[in-house]
């Protein structure tokens, strides 16, 4: 687009990120932020469909869900929750650094965030492997005989319903993990850009918006963790 490029240049030379059709940088920033928030709403509804399925089936097959849930590793789940929370802190500190124009600090926090995200995924990988080993992956090889809870009390379970739990488990955590992978990629790219000095206190919208995304993915996990891992651990 020769025309648009030219206009961009002429309009506000010192801020190459300002697009021609915006009146000023403020308008552009407000637009980007509103756009991001709306996108987050679509994410809420996207996961919402699965939460709805979860809710319905949990009410219907409570025993099986409790028994199946106890096969998840609460240790890994809790550890991952902590990892995500720490990563959310580093993200918010990264945004703060960007706002203050501290390039190196920013890059540092971004790198830590990516590392934390990858930690999460690696732990998740171990969890998935465990499921394969225990034949807890839905499908023809699925087996579920672990009908005793942590305290040795038998929970009567129809293995089919436990399979349903694991279907939901894989659908929900899998979709969440996919979002984590995207987030890691996103922050990886941002790290490179930040290193190259693309962002300034006057312009760091991408960092801010990616941060919002990361926090939302965190929030989804905050709900997934108790819903999937913490059913009927007592008794």
């Amino acid at each position, binding site marked *: 687009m020769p025309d*648009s490029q030219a206009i961009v240049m002429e309009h506000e030379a010192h801020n190459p990120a300002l697009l021609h059709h915006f009146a000023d940088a403020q308008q552009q920033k407000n637009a980007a932020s*509103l756009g991001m928030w709306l996108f987050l709403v679509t994410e809420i*509804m996207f996961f919402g469909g699965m939460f709805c399925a979860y809710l*319905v089936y949990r009410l219907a097959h409570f025993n099986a869900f409790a028994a199946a849930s106890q096969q998840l590793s609460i240790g890994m789940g809790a550890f991952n929750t902590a990892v995500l929370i720490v990563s959310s802190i580093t993200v918010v500190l990264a945004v703060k650094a960007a706002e203050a124009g501290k390039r190196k600090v920013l890059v540092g926090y971004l790198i830590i965030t990516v590392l934390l995200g990858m930690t999460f995924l690696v732990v998740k990988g171990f969890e998935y492997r465990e499921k394969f080993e225990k034949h807890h992956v*839905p499908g023809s090889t699925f087996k579920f005989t672990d009908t005793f809870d942590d305290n040795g009390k038998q929970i009567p379970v129809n293995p089919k319903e436990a399979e349903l739990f694991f279907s939901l488990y894989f659908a929900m955590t899998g979709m969440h993990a996919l979002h984590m992978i995207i987030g890691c990629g996103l922050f990886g790219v941002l790290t490179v850009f930040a290193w190259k000095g693309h962002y300034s206190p006057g312009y760091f919208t991408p960092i801010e918006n990616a941060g919002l995304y990361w926090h939302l993915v965190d929030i989804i996990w905050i709900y997934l963790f108790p819903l999937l891992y913490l059913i009927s651990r007592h008794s």
Partner: protein
Amino acid sequence: MASTVIPANQTLAPTPKLNYLNNGHTLKSWLLTTDHKRIALLYLISVTVFFFLGGFFAMLIRLELLTPQGDLMQADTYNKVFTMHGMIMVFFFLIPVVPAVLGNFLVPLMIGAKDLAFPRINLLSWYLYITAGTLFLHCMLTGGVDTGWTFYTPYSTVGSNTNVIEAGLAVFIAGFSSIFTGLNFIVTIHRMRAPGLTWDRLPLFIWANYATSLIMILGTPVIAITVVLVAVERLFHLGIFDPRLGGDPLLFQHLFWFYSHPAVYIMILPSMGVISELIACFARKRIFGYKFVALSSLAIAVFGFLVWAHHMFVAGISLYAAMIFSFLSFSVGVPSAVKVFNWTATLYKSSISYATPMLYAFGFIGLFTIGGLTGLMLATIGIDVHVTDTYFVVAHFHYVMVGGVLMGYLGGLHFWWPKISGRMYPESWAKLSALLVFVGFNLTFFPQFILGYVGMPRRYWQYPPEFQVLNVLSTAGSSVLAVGYLLPMIYLLWSLKYGPIAEANPWGAAGLEWQTTSPPPTFNFDETPVVTWEAYNYDEIPAPKQLEAPGAR
């Protein structure tokens, strides 16, 4: 183009002849454009292709149903044909048609902006749409799908041995195209309005698109995840809806209709917005009860989320839930009624010209009223038990979708054609086609109400012989309808070259889009307009000299 060709390197020269159409002639300048108007045209072309494809399938349906025996094609083929017809018409034609073509073109123009807030995302949504469309075509050519457009489980997960996953993926991608359009509109309407253009001065078309965008953002993700779950169930045997695992097939229906009911308002709302513009212009009046018409769009959008299970009255939901959803369904009727009554009231003491767009607007009011009122009958549970899954429902939704949305779209297309193309269309041909569409439409779909009440189930490839007469009428009507749709296709193309040059404001219409040249320059306005007047200030605009468009013949 008739205007002189301007070399690309001179595009910034402020010649008055320079507009978005001749600003760059290469294929690249179209395929990589971020100009909302060019993207609208890309959509116009692709959506039209899908409409004719969907129409082609409709004709196959009608031909098959000419006789009671299934003699034209195999049962499986018929099942694929109506599935393709429904999916194409809904996901690849009707949902994008008004927002992505007219909305894309007009939203920035109407609010005095240079472009949508995210032009590149706008282009991306077109590419997503095209990807989805191509995928769907591929799916179609390699066997197609036969689940009906509703993808009901467990048929879609275990029953069907057709290409469900690919079709689901296409719907998924098309969904994201729609989400991005909606997101773009909301941000644009919030952030990019010209100075002085307050919310109570916005054209009703903008209000309608705003409400539509809300539905797109809130509803579409749910169907996206739902088709993903269906695909995953087919692929990896994760049984989310599988009754053998204790899954509930009705859960699929809940999730599906949570989107797909509001989606019918994605279709109708923008068209209602168009109708408001048309009536105001050709009655030369501010719309009666502007505020109520504007807010009723929002009301429809919100209430639309409360009624989805009226598609499931006999599906096995609880008695009480059925009652709740029936009750809530009527809530949508009220804001719809408000619109119909206000349009009618606008005609009072007005000055009406019967230009083609206005004829379509009349058609819309008439057919939407029938479609809507039969919608109320379906919402009445005692009746729905008998008529659900019969041709009564088919007639209902064609009345609202074809009689409503499509009429509105055609009216809008004619109305803004001078702005889009810079040319006038031939008025008398246009009137003829409007008439053909109206007559053909009623002949096609009115008999289906009767057919439904006497009990002919939908999605039937063969039927008991006593239903034949009504089916023959319907088929006859559909051929009239086909001619009615082919005509505009021909004369609009013709007008691109031979139509009289359009002025900036051939209708003497209010609205910022008419204050710039026809066709508009790339950035819409040479100077950002400052708005100091209310919407539809027709008392301040002189009516055009002729009763109808200049160049009418």
